[in-house]
């Protein structure tokens, strides 16, 4: 997004929220009257706001995690520990602070030297945020080949048998 269009979007946000001065408000209103694209953007903002309000309203819904965990196909539930916790092994002698600092410096140097933080580094994960509208939703796969997201319906259509694949 260019700097100009970013400014226009910010102005539209402010216009929609009633945060502009009278003059700027008049100026944006004039642009809206002339520019159908600006009107579409403002309409899209209204839609986005409605979505956000809808999301905010759904915050008070009951915690669905237990239901989701029960339906997860790959979930392995660890058994609770029966006996007392094992005694801690004797502590190894601590490394001096300068050793930690040297290690951290070496790691930073490697990261910078290899360009791991540059834009060329592959960014595999695709999901930024996800909402199943109150239904359990699973990211079955998110790797360089594909992202697969499955929304589980309330009926018992999911199994945890065998390899644990989702069932249609």
């Amino acid at each position, binding site marked *: 997004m*260019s700097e100009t*269009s970013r400014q226009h979007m910010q102005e539209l946000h402010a216009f929609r929220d009633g945060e502009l001065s009278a003059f700027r408000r008049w100026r944006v209103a004039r642009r809206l009257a002339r520019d159908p694209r600006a009107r579409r*953007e403002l309409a899209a903002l209204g839609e986005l706001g409605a979505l956000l309000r809808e999301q905010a309203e759904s915050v008070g819904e009951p915690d669905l995690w237990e239901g989701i965990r029960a339906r997860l196909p790959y979930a392995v539930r660890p058994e609770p520990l029966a006996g007392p916790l094992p005694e801690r092994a004797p502590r190894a002698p601590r490394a001096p602070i300068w050793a930690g600092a040297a290690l951290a410096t070496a790691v930073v140097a490697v990261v910078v030297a290899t360009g791991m933080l540059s834009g060329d580094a592959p960014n595999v994960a695709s999901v930024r945020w996800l*909402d*199943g509208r109150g239904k359990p939703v699973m990211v079955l796969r998110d790797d*360089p080949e594909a992202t*697969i997201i499955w929304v589980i319906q309330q009926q018992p259509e999911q199994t945890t048998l065998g390899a644990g694949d989702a069932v*249609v």
Partner: protein
Amino acid sequence: MRWSRAALALALALAAAAPFALAQPLVEPPRPGAGKPAQPRLDFAVTVLHASPRPGGVDPAAERFDQLLRSSLRYESLRVVKAKQRHVKLNEIERVRLPTGEDFRFRPIDAGDRGVLVAINWRKTARGDFRLPRGKPLILGGQPFEDGQLVVILEAE
């Protein structure tokens, strides 16, 4: 005495910086032909599949997706219900009508080297933001349809 030294130091600094200042134009001259950048149109492919537990095989047009889905989902038949190409501008909302009568809507928010950031809104099913590198399909499924479920695939081209 102190002031004269300071003035001398300032003069020397200015004299040293002057050639660099003169060499660097204050305002970048306009490049010929560099007008207002056009808003890019982004190409998307939207494919709607129907995955069913009934036997029926895999639609040849769905074979590529079958390879991706087979390891994660169980179904007996997979067929293409709809395949659409869409050219969308940034921040423009695009809709694809699904067989259920609902709209699958998406809006590209940002485009860069790592792909297109897309906001998706599938009514009654799911919504979210996803980054789509070119050639990496986003596969969303789970909405009941007929005897199976619908799968919507969005790809940035």
